[in-house]
């Protein structure tokens, strides 16, 4: 198991954003954290990344306890909804950042950045600045930046949320193909059930801070556990007549 969270809880004042969530993400899988806006899924992701500290519960990454560690020591790759690219650095410099921080030798950095650029097919844009790229290109750079230091886990927070519909659709399949190439354990947050069901190996459905159901897309569709799951996945409710 690459990611294990046990009884994770987080409150903001009186509001309980995450309520005793326990779940596991298998090694090498692409898993979707699905749920409506405000359901707590982004908070769960940020707790796993170490960008928030839980009030209760534990986080384990590839078998080691990560609960006490700050974000920079967890070895997670994180992709933000609004890319968070470093505006004053070029594409190459952005991608290289994680390696530079780890004091990797320059020649090695150059090699690995080049490999990344090839992977995301943006080689000719290596000296461009984020402001010169389209939204879809920026998100690919953000992904490359997160992947370059070879994190043990990749976390994506609504990665396609700020892109228009067509680009979103294209990038979604691109992400799946990328995952099949790179095989890093990935957890992505989305409110788009279409997106989750079409590319994820497993789906975790979150509602009001609690885990509603967890399983493969097929399992969720064939055996929805609660009325909320039926409703969210667009199935007619059980007790309503069909005519």
């Amino acid at each position, binding site marked *: 198991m690459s990611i294990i969270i046990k009884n994770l809880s987080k409150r*903001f*004042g009186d*509001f309980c*954003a995450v309520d005793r969530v326990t779940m596991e993400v298998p090694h090498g899988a692409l898993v979707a954290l699905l749920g409506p*806006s*405000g359901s*707590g899924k*982004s*908070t769960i992701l*940020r707790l796993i990344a*170490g*960008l*928030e*500290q839980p009030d209760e519960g534990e986080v384990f990454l590839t078998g080691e306890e990560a609960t*006490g560690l*700050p*974000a920079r020591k967890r070895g997670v790759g994180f992709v933000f909804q609004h890319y968070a690219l470093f505006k004053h650095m070029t594409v190459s410099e952005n991608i290289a950042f994680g390696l530079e921080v780890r004091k990797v030798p320059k020649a090695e950095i150059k090699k690995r950045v080049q490999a990344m650029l090839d992977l995301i097919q943006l080689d000719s844009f290596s000296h461009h600045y984020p402001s010169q790229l389209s939204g879809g290109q920026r998100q690919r750079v953000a992904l490359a930046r997160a992947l370059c230091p070879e994190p043990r886990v990749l976390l994506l927070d609504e990665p396609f949320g700020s892109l228009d519909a067509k680009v979103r659709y294209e990038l979604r399949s691109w992400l799946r193909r990328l995952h099949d190439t790179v095989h890093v354990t990935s957890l992505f947050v989305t409110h788009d059930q279409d997106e989750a069901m079409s590319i994820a190996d497993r789906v975790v459905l979150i509602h009001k801070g609690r885990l509603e159901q967890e399983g493969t897309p097929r399992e969720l569709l064939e055996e929805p556990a609660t009325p909320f799951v039926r409703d969210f996945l667009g199935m007619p409710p059980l007790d309503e007549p069909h005519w």
Partner: protein
Amino acid sequence: MPEASVPSYGAWHFGPDRWRHRTVTAATLAWFAVLTLVPVGALAKAALMGGWAPFRALAASPDARHAFILTILATAASVLLNGVFGLVLAVLLARYEFPGKAILDALLDMPFAISPVVAGFMLLLLLGPKGLLGHFFEAAGVHVVFAIPGIILATLFVSLPFVVREVVPVLKEVGLEQEEAAQTLGAGPWTTFRRVTFPAIRWGLAYGVSLTAARALGEFGAVLVVSGNIIGRTQTTTLFINQEFADFHFEGAYCAALVLALASMLLLLGMEAAKRFAKGTS
């Protein structure tokens, strides 16, 4: 929804980061206190050491009273004239293009950048009895330097940029569309300004005006040079304080200074309120 609006200081309030956070905050607050609050406290203590007697003496002194009146006069004139002309200049800079616009913009930074003594000196050269404009006034028997008009002009100079600088960005942000809508509805330029533009820039203007007043209240160097520092005749409050200090009348100096300090702090609170309202309406 709390999820979107929660500030994420979470990671930095943890472990070793928490102590760094606390140390930096404490150091900043300490630097700030030493630099800002402690001196004001010391002034208050020095001024109030003799009880209320020095204040009463101040109120009774004709020189002090004259100084306060001059300060109020100069401040009022600056607020009025720089307010009106500042608005004119702001509209010119924010809404129009014309040759020399960049130079005008740069010139408005001059009163910020130049030493008040040099400003006063320039005005002395211009308006003194032998100056370019000065000798006209002399011939007409009007005293500009070493007299009240000179004081007002010096105060106008140093407090010139504030209203313009605060109103220009607000005007730019408000944009043309509302004004154009008013025009399509039949409003003339003055009506448009009065009923559409002005209400939108109100708080930016208020902020600029309070900055102007604070600057005018506190002006020293330029007025010192232009006024000739004639006791009881051309001394503003700041000049009066300097005189008292030079004459070793420390109590008088501290008391008058405390009065000005309180007036400035009141203006400061007004400034902050205007700033907050300005942000709220944008």
